[in-house]
């Protein structure tokens, strides 16, 4: 079933001399994970912005199911698309459970308190990420890896059909990266589509069903990772030569 579709979308920032995203198309089915890779400034974040509805395409369409994303109200968008920005500042020491419960805001009227169903969903999301023990801990006291898992739990608790994740493993150690990889797979298997941007090619190859390689806003490849991560394509995308070597990897990442 088609969950999310970009049909030849372009986006240009006001002062830029070229499109940040230039006629990119992709289809994501339910249960699929697609990674977006490319050099800094290649258009990954812009593409994610178009997918999340933060940006409105200058041309082409971005759809979730049958609905055009840019036309959805924030409330309806939250019901369909969960977003994990690369970084996030948390100014107050909410408990992890309260922090995850925020994801349920679109499920109820603006004035209603979270109900039993919301608490159940929040606790189950923390369990999916393996961090249920952190429920009562203040988010401000978590390590970077723990916070990332709790933020992902918030995306899960949102019960959206598409998850848009911007560099979910940035600055994480191998153990936490593989925990994120495992979680992303579990999320996809539960019937969600996942679109994620990353610089971590090993993580991308291990977790994704499809890979989109961007160079200056254009797609240079959109294929299975084994084909999209061809050394020639990567060299074209990143502007440096690549070579395949075996580096140590967590077993969790290898067992796709």
């Amino acid at each position, binding site marked *: 079933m088609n969950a999310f579709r970009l049909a030849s979308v372009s986006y240009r920032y006001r002062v830029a001399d070229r499109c940040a995203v230039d006629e990119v198309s992709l289809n994501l089915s339910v249960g699929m994970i697609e990674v977006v890779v490319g050099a800094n400034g290649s258009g990954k974040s812009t593409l994610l912005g178009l997918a999340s509805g*933060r940006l409105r395409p200058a041309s082409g369409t971005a759809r979730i199911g049958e609905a055009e994303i840019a036309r959805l109200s924030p409330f309806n*968008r*939250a019901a369909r698309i969960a977003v994990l920005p690369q970084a996030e*500042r948390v100014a107050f020491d909410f408990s992890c459970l309260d922090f995850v419960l925020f994801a349920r*805001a*679109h499920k109820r009227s*603006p004035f209603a308190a979270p109900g039993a169903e919301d608490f159940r969903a929040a606790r189950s999301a923390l369990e999916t990420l393996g961090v249920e023990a952190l429920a009562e801990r203040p988010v401000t006291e978590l390590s970077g890896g723990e916070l990332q898992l709790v933020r992902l739990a918030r995306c899960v608790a*949102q019960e959206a059909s598409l998850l848009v994740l911007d560099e979910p493993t940035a600055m994480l150690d191998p153990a936490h990266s593989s925990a994120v990889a495992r979680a992303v797979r579990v999320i996809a298997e539960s019937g969600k589509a996942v679109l994620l941007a990353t610089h971590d090619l090993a993580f991308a190859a291990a977790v994704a069903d499809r890979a989109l390689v961007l160079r200056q806003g254009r797609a240079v490849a959109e294929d299975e990772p084994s084909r999209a991560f061809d050394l020639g394509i990567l060299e074209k995308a990143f502007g440096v030569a690549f070579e395949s070597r075996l580096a140590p990897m967590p077993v969790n990442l290898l067992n796709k």
Partner: protein
Amino acid sequence: MGSNKALRILLLLGLFVAVCGAALFLGRYPAPGFLPPFALRDDPIARAVVFGSRMPRILGAVLIGASLGGAGAAFQLVFANPLVEPGFLGVSQGAAFGAALSMILGAGLGPLTALSAFVFALIALLISSILARKFRYGGSVLRLVLAGISVSAVFSAGIAIIKYTADPLSQLPDITYWTLGGLSGLNWTSFRLLAPSVIVSLLLLLLLRRRIDLLSLDDEVARSLGARPEAERAFILASAALGVAASVAASGVVSWAGLVVPHVARAIVGADARASVPVSMILGALFLVVCDAAARTMFAGELPLGATVSALGAFVFVGFLASGRTRIIR
């Protein structure tokens, strides 16, 4: 909300009611200290003092404290900054200017001055929000802060000019006294002027406290969770400022309460606005009733409320900053 939190809130409410009850009987009539309750039956002056003078004053302190505490908690959460206080968008200085202007025009300390303070507080808020939209520097929060600083500075300059031109014998003392903050002018008439705006403001903040939580997250996250950060933040600020403007109009400038009280509330029930906003209201009310009781009882002449609140507030604030219980990010 856990049962532990609910118990703490109940205890706090009990303490609040007890303190308000005690404050009714505390004062300097007929002698400094507590008035015996049976005096209400026998002494008509005691009845007049308790019901005609102390009761509106204490109820006024409750509303003003609740408004400053609740607004402080809301401001700090929606700006994701624990150093923000309700006056910082120009509301306090705007109100002080309005009051000074009315006094120099001959209205004295009365309802007309309160109304003028209220109107100018809202004007200051309006100018701050318009300026914030016009600025081409920084994100939405920084633009509001910069606009608030600019507007406050302009109204402070206005107050200075008014003071400079005021009659030093008849007008200047009134203006100076008012800007120090105090509740001695609160009677049933000014209470009736104060109550509607504050009660509407408190109800709005209580109703919207789950949205306030969302706005404490980064705007991009809040948006992805279904919020409209700019519009919702503006509405919550206006709701809070409505109460603050009415409070400043009734009591003069009482700073620090709105800054300090939310820190204490978060230490008691956590950051979540579901509990921290109502607890900030209760604590703010409690804090102001205690400070006002001290201000009117300790000496034969009244201490300015603004001074007692600031002195006590600053001690608590320094304690919090030194204890490392507060994180400042933005």
